[in-house]
C-alpha cells in the first residue's frame, strides 16, 4: 500500500473521535464526474490510480490486482490499474472498457462518484449513460495522439448534456518526455475545437495515470506546470448545489399514495424550486390550482421541502392529479405542447425510422411519439451540419418530435429533468435514443389555462417569421444602402415585418454623440448590434447598412444573436470603383484631407472572411442583388 496521503482518511480522527468524523463526512459535498475520451487514452488506468492512491483498495483486492496484472495486464510485470475498474470478463480479456463502471471514493474535503466510460465509438451509449448524471468531465487525451475524433465526439456530448466543468487531462506525459511543447500544442488544438462547440472554459492538466504524475500531487517531472494536481482541482471546483432550489417549483407526480379514503398524497422528487405548506400550486396539464396542505414524511410533516427531496404532498382541494402530472408554482407553471424541436442522440443499431411510433419517456410521462426526418446531422469532427434522412447508431442530429398527446415540459437548458427524454422501441423495448428538448413548435390547442407568455417566440410566431439580422458591410459608396432598401421592399411585398437601420436614422439620433475615431466606430456598432438584437426579440427582420469596417465588431454583433440569426452580407465593391462612383463626394473630400479617418483612405477596411453572402456589385445590379439575397434567405428557411 502506498504511504498515506493527508488528503485521504485521517485514521487519527477516526480512532479518536468517530462521531466528529462521521459528522464531517455527512456534510461533505459530493462531486459526480466521468472520465471520457478516445480509446486507450488511459481513462480506466487513471481511475484505478485514483482509487489506489486514495486507499480505496483493500489488501485482498490488491493481492488480486497484482496477480491479475501479471496474468492479463498490459503492463508486463507491473500493476495494470485499469484492471481495478474494467470489471467484466470481456473487458479484461480485450483490455478495453465496454460499459461504464461506477466507483466511489472520498477525501477529507469531498466525496466522489466517478463513472469510467468506454472510449470505443461502438459503446458511445454507455458513455452518455455515465455523462447524463455528471457534474464534471475529465476528457483524456493521449499525449502522443492529440485530439482525435472520439475526443471531439465525447466533448460534444459533454456539452450537449450540459456538464458544467471540463478538465482536459493530457495523459501519458511519461511517453513524451514530459514535454511542455507537446502539452501546449494539444491544449491549443483543443481550445480551438472547444470554443467551436460552446465549451468556453476548461482546465488543462498534464498527467500520467500510469506513473501517477499530477494525479494526487503535483509532479516534479513537470516543473513548468503551475496549476493544481487533478485531485486538488476535483476537490476544489465550485459546485452550486442549491442552484436548482432557486428556480420555480416543479415536481412530477410519480405515484398517488392512497392508503385509505382519508388520505390522498402525491409522491415525487422535487425537480426544481422549493415548496411550503400553504403555497398555491397548479397541476399541469389540467391547470387546476390548489394549495399545499401537508408535506408528509415518515419522520414527521415538513413545513418546507426543496429540490432533490423525495416527498409526498397533500392538497387542500380534491382535484384531479395522477402520475405524469406536474405540480408547479401557480404563477409560473411550465408549458404544455405536442410538437418540439430537439437534439437527438441515436443509440440503437436499427437507425431512426422517421414517422414510426416510439415510446417517449420524459419525467414521469410516457407517450407515443414520432420523429420527423432530421433537419440535419452534426459531423462531430467539424460541427458541420449535414443533410440527413435518418440517424444511425451514435448519430447526433436535430429533428422535430411530435407526441400523440400534449406533455408538460421545459427546455433542457432550463430544466434537465423536464427537458431530457428517452425513446423506447415499442417492439424490442430497447432504449434507442436520448433527446434534449429545445422548444415547442406550437402551443397545444386544447389547453387554455395559461396566459401566453409574450416572449421572443411568441412575437415571432405572431409575425409568422423567423427573426434575423441582415448585416450589410462594405466600403462607403459600395451600394449597401441601395441594396438594403431593395431587400426591404421585396420582404415587405412578401408580408414580412422588417426594419432598416442605417446612417440616416441612427447617426442623427441614437448615436448623435459619436464621431469617427476607432473607439467611436466600435461603440457605434455595439449600439447598433444591441438595437438590432432587441428588434429581433420583437420578431422583426432587421436590416443594417453600415460600413462596419472592423472584423471584431462584426463578430461582436454576431455573438449577440442566437446562432443562425446573424447573416452577414458583404457588399464587395473594389475601392477604385467606389471611389469612382463617389455619390456623396466624400472620397474627394477625404483625398483632399478635409475628412479624417475615412475608411479605405486613412482608416482600414477589414474584408469579411466568413460572410454568409457576398455581393459583387460589378456583376449585379442592386435589384438583382436584392433578389439574390431574398432567395438565399428563403432557401435557408426551407431547409430547416
Amino acid at each position, binding site marked *: 500500500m502506498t504511504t498515506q496521503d493527508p488528503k485521504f482518511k485521517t485514521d487519527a480522527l477516526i480512532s479518536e473521535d468517530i462521531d466528529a468524523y462521521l459528522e464531517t*463526512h*455527512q*456534510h*461533505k459535498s*459530493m462531486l459526480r464526474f466521468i472520465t471520457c475520451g478516445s480509446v486507450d487514452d488511459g481513462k480506466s488506468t487513471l481511475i484505478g490510480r485514483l482509487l489506489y492512491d486514495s486507499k480505496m483498495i483493500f489488501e485482498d483486492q490488491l493481492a488480486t490486482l497484482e496477480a491479475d496484472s501479471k496474468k492479463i495486464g498490459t503492463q508486463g510485470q507491473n500493476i495494470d490499474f485499469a484492471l481495478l475498474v474494467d470489471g467484466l470478463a470481456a473487458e479484461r480479456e480485450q483490455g478495453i472498457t465496454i460499459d461504464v463502471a461506477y466507483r466511489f471514493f472520498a477525501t477529507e474535503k469531498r*466525496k466522489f462518484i466517478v463513472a469510467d466510460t468506454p472510449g470505443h465509438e461502438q459503446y458511445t451509449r454507455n458513455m452518455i449513460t455515465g455523462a447524463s448524471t455528471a457534474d464534471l468531465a475529465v476528457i483524456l487525451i493521449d499525449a502522443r495522439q492529440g485530439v482525435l475524433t472520439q475526443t471531439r465526439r465525447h466533448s460534444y456530448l459533454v456539452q450537449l448534456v450540459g456538464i458544467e466543468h471540463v478538465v482536459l487531462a493530457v495523459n501519458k506525459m511519461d511517453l513524451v518526455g514530459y514535454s511542455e511543447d507537446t502539452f501546449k500544442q494539444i491544449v491549443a488544438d483543443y481550445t480551438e475545437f472547444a470554443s467551436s462547440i460552446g465549451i468556453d472554459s476548461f482546465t488543462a492538466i498534464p498527467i500520467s495515470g500510469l506513473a501517477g504524475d499530477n494525479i494526487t500531487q503535483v509532479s516534479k517531472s513537470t516543473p513548468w506546470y503551475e496549476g493544481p494536481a487533478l485531485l486538488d482541482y476535483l476537490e476544489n471546483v465550485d459546485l452550486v*448545489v*442549491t442552484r436548482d*432550489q432557486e428556480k420555480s417549483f416543479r415536481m412530477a407526480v*410519480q*405515484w398517488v*399514495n*392512497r*392508503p385509505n379514503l382519508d*388520505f390522498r*398524497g402525491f*409522491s*415525487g*422528487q422535487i425537480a426544481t424550486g*422549493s415548496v411550503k405548506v400553504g403555497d398555491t400550486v397548479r397541476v399541469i396539464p389540467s391547470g387546476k390550482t390548489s394549495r399545499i396542505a401537508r408535506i*408528509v*414524511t*415518515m*419522520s414527521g410533516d415538513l413545513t*418546507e421541502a*426543496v429540490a*432533490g*427531496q*423525495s416527498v*409526498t404532498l397533500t392538497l387542500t382541494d380534491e382535484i384531479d392529479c395522477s*402520475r405524469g402530472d406536474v405540480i408547479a408554482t401557480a404563477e409560473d407553471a411550465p408549458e404544455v405542447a405536442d410538437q418540439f424541436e430537439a437534439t437527438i442522440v441515436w443509440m440503437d443499431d436499427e437507425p431512426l425510422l422517421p414517422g414510426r411510433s416510439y415510446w417517449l419517456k420524459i419525467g*414521469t410521462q410516457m407517450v407515443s411519439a414520432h420523429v420527423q426526418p432530421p433537419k440535419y446531422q452534426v459531423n462531430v469532427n467539424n460541427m458541420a451540419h449535414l443533410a440527413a434522412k435518418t440517424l444511425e447508431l451514435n448519430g447526433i442530429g436535430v429533428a422535430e418530435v411530435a407526441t400523440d398527446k400534449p406533455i408538460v415540459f421545459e427546455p433542457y437548458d432550463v430544466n434537465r429533468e423536464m427537458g431530457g427524454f428517452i425513446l423506447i422501441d415499442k417492439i424490442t423495448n430497447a432504449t434507442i435514443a436520448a433527446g434534449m428538448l429545445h422548444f415547442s413548435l406550437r402551443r397545444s390547442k386544447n389547453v387554455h389555462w395559461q396566459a401566453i407568455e409574450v416572449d421572443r417566440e411568441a412575437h415571432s410566431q405572431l409575425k409568422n417569421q423567423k427573426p434575423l439580422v441582415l448585416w450589410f458591410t462594405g466600403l462607403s459608396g459600395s451600394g449597401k444602402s441601395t441594396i438594403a432598401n431593395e431587400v426591404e421592399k421585396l420582404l415587405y411585398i412578401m408580408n414580412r415585418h422588417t426594419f432598416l437601420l442605417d446612417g440616416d436614422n441612427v447617426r442623427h439620433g441614437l448615436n448623435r454623440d459619436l464621431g469617427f475615431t476607432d473607439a467611436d466606430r466600435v461603440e457605434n456598432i455595439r449600439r447598433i448590434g444591441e438595437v438590432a438584437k432587441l428588434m429581433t426579440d420583437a420578431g422583426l427582420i432587421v436590416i443594417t447598412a453600415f460600413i462596419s469596417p472592423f472584423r471584431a465588431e462584426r463578430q461582436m454583433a454576431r455573438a449577440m444573436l442566437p446562432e443562425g440569426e446573424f447573416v452577414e452580407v458583404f457588399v464587395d465593391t473594389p475601392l477604385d470603383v467606389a471611389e469612382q462612383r463617389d455619390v456623396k463626394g466624400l472620397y474627394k473630400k477625404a483625398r483632399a484631407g478635409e475628412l479624417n479617418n475615412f475608411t479605405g483612405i486613412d482608416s482600414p477596411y477589414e474584408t469579411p472572411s466568413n460572410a454568409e453572402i457576398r455581393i459583387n456589385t460589378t456583376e449585379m445590379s442592386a435589384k438583382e442583388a436584392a433578389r439574390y439575397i431574398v432567395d438565399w434567405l428563403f432557401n435557408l428557411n426551407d431547409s430547416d
Partner: protein
Amino acid sequence: MNLTHLERLEAESIQIMREVVAESENPVMLYSVGKDSAAMLHVARKAFFPAPPPFPLLHVDTTWKFKDMYALREKAAKDAGMQMLVYKNPEAVDAH
C-alpha cells in the same frame, strides 16, 4: 438549504422505488435479513408512508441461517405491515 449526502442518497432510492411501483405489474423486494436489506426496507417504508410498501418481501431461505436472523425477519415484516414470503426449497413456498 443543503441536503446531506445521506439525504440525497435516500431521496434517489425513494425515487427509484416509486418508479418500480408505478411501472411494474407485480413487484417484490428481496430480503436477506442482512444490513443492506434492513436499510433498503427502511427506505421503502419512507417512500410509501403512510401506506405500507405496496409489495411483499421475499426471503430465499437456505435454512442455513443463524437463529437471530429468523427472529428479525418476522419482526421486520410485521413492523412494516408487509407480507413476508419465504421460499425454502424448490417444493415448498410459504407465506408468513
